[in-house]
């Protein structure tokens, strides 16, 4: 494999990582910071994508579609938080698992009911379609470069929000002792609704952004959910920085594993067995990565006990 291709694959890995971060950002916020296991995160991602697809097909504007994805997911988030999640903060994690699992069922079938059983159309805006030329003769899709940019901005913004603002402190305080932070005068209920809505909006936003280059369909959220969990666990729960680093690691491992493992096995095996074993191993690579990292750092890269 030549160097240019290798560089391009590294870039792909990075890009995939940033995309993962976008998907995981809302989850880190809700899960890491509010301590809530939200399996329905993938559903909010789906809601965003569907809202964007619907608005894009009605208006033809990608910008409006993005706004719609933010709004729809945030509204869904507020409703879900006020009706369901709010009653679960002081419960066992397991109750949260069951409740949000139920939410997945409702969201998935509800979406299918509204939008039908077939995937929807959502395309990248024409301004960002096609590829741009980078040095070394690499040409790279413009839209993916945009995703990288947006991912960095979101990461930085969230990092500041959580670590540097008073709101961030209150959220973190509430995570360890809700009763106490309320007794000090913080309206934690409103704060949490807002955070949940923000997390949901981020999920929806990611759904719309990523949906433009993937399939907008019912069930699109579940694989993302698992990936997002893997990402934030590798980075250490509650750490935006960890989520970001974790996402890049996962993106690089997955991409380079897919590319290199079959080649590697091909060196000492017949080609068809090599591709088969190589790609089987590649599909496990991120799980192997996660297991390995947790064995050496049981609370993830940036997590605290």
């Amino acid at each position, binding site marked *: 494999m030549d160097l240019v291709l290798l560089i391009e694959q590294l870039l792909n890995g990075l890009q995939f990582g940033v995309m993962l971060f976008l998907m995981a950002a809302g989850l880190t916020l809700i899960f890491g910071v509010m301590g809530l296991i939200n399996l329905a995160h993938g559903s909010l991602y789906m809601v965003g994508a569907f809202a964007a697809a619907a608005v894009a097909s009605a208006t033809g504007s990608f910008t409006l579609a993005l706004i719609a994805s933010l709004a729809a997911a945030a509204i869904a988030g507020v409703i879900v938080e006020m009706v369901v999640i709010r009653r679960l903060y002081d419960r066992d994690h397991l109750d949260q698992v069951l409740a949000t699992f139920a939410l997945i069922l409702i969201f998935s079938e509800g979406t299918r009911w509204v939008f039908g059983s077939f995937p929807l159309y959502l395309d990248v805006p024409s301004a960002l379609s096609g590829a741009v030329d980078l040095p070394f003769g690499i040409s790279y899709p413009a839209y993916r470069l945009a995703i990288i940019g947006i991912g960095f901005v979101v990461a930085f913004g969230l990092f500041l929000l959580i670590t540097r603002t008073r709101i961030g402190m209150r959220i973190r305080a509430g995570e360890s002792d809700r009763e106490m932070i309320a007794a000090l005068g913080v309206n934690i209920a409103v704060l949490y609704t807002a955070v949940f809505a923000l997390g949901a909006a981020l999920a929806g936003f990611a759904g719309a952004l990523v949906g433009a280059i993937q399939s907008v369909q019912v*069930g699109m959220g579940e694989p993302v959910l698992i990936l997002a969990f893997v990402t934030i666990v590798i980075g250490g729960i509650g750490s935006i920085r960890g989520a970001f680093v974790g996402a890049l690691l996962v993106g690089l491992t997955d991409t380079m594993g897919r590319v290199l493992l079959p080649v590697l096995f091909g060196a000492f095996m017949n080609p068809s067995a090599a591709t088969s074993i190589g790609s089987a191993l590649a599909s496990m690579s991120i799980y192997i990565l996660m297991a390995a990292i947790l064995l050496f750092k049981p609370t993830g890269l940036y997590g605290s006990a």
Partner: protein
Amino acid sequence: DGLKVGMITTLSGGGAGLGIDVRDGFMLAVKQSGRSDIELVVEDDQRKPDVAVQLADKLVQSEKVDVLTGIIWSNLAMAVVPSVTAQGKFYLSPNAGPSALAGKGCHPNYFNVSWQNDAFNEAAGAWATENGVEKVFLLAPNYPAGKDMIAGFKRFYDGEVSNEVYTKLGQTDYAAEIAQIRADDADMLYYFLPGGMGISFMKQYAGSGADKPVMGPAFSFDQGILGAIGEAALGVKNTSHWSKDLDVPGNAEFVASFTEEFGRLPSLYAAQGFDTGLLLASAMEKADVSDADAFRAALKEADFQSVRGDFKFAPNHHPIHTIYMREVVKEGDVVTNKVIGVAAEDHTDAYGVDCKM
């Protein structure tokens, strides 16, 4: 008298579109046959093999159906078909044709009305050979159906295979594979990526600036999916036994009546469901299901006008039919398929030789 059909298909979750089309096509055929003695029980398998098995038990043991049909996915078919045919029931496959059931595992009561999994791919391989494609890049998910599809293509393809890449099942990002494809010197890309995987791939491929021509089996370019890919799919060639513009008797009427009844264009799966319904009705004209041998013989005759044209059963009860080459085009605002030629005439599958029945 009369007959009870059990349909196990996927009606909820991600893959529901296919099941719903099969069901609707089938019901349309039954309705048009004018028979009131067909009783239909529909069950949702949720795309889970274990659920499918249990539903099969239910339909056979409690509902006491005579005929089963409906399954979309190969792995579910593998789970259900052997046991129901062993219990003396008939199974008509409206989709999915795993090789095991066409060869060694064939059964007199199992009729495949759709295709053997390899068919479209074999036809595509033949077409590529004939049209002077010298080098292809092959891409499929890493699971049995994916490997079968690629093997099917290679069986009828004489040119060179530059690379064979297997991706993770359910993968959604293909940047790495696309980079490999772009750097490759093949003349053509052939891929099989069903459902959402295909949509994601095609959108990303089109946006990457890659320019190799693309070909694949119809599954990745069916009507329901084209709607989601949009113009990114224009120009893609794909093999299919059916197309809505296919000029054979009955097809235009089918397309019109399906559209009228359900408010959407029929898909490949709807056509297969429809054919399955027609086959069943045709057999009922000739024999009563209580006489299994006669009924089997009647099915075997396949005396119905398939919407894909000529249709016969090979000895292993899999179709002998023509596979066409289609191209994705834009008709007005709609991205859809157009037949551009024949890829394989009167095609039969390669596994029948192993079938002893």
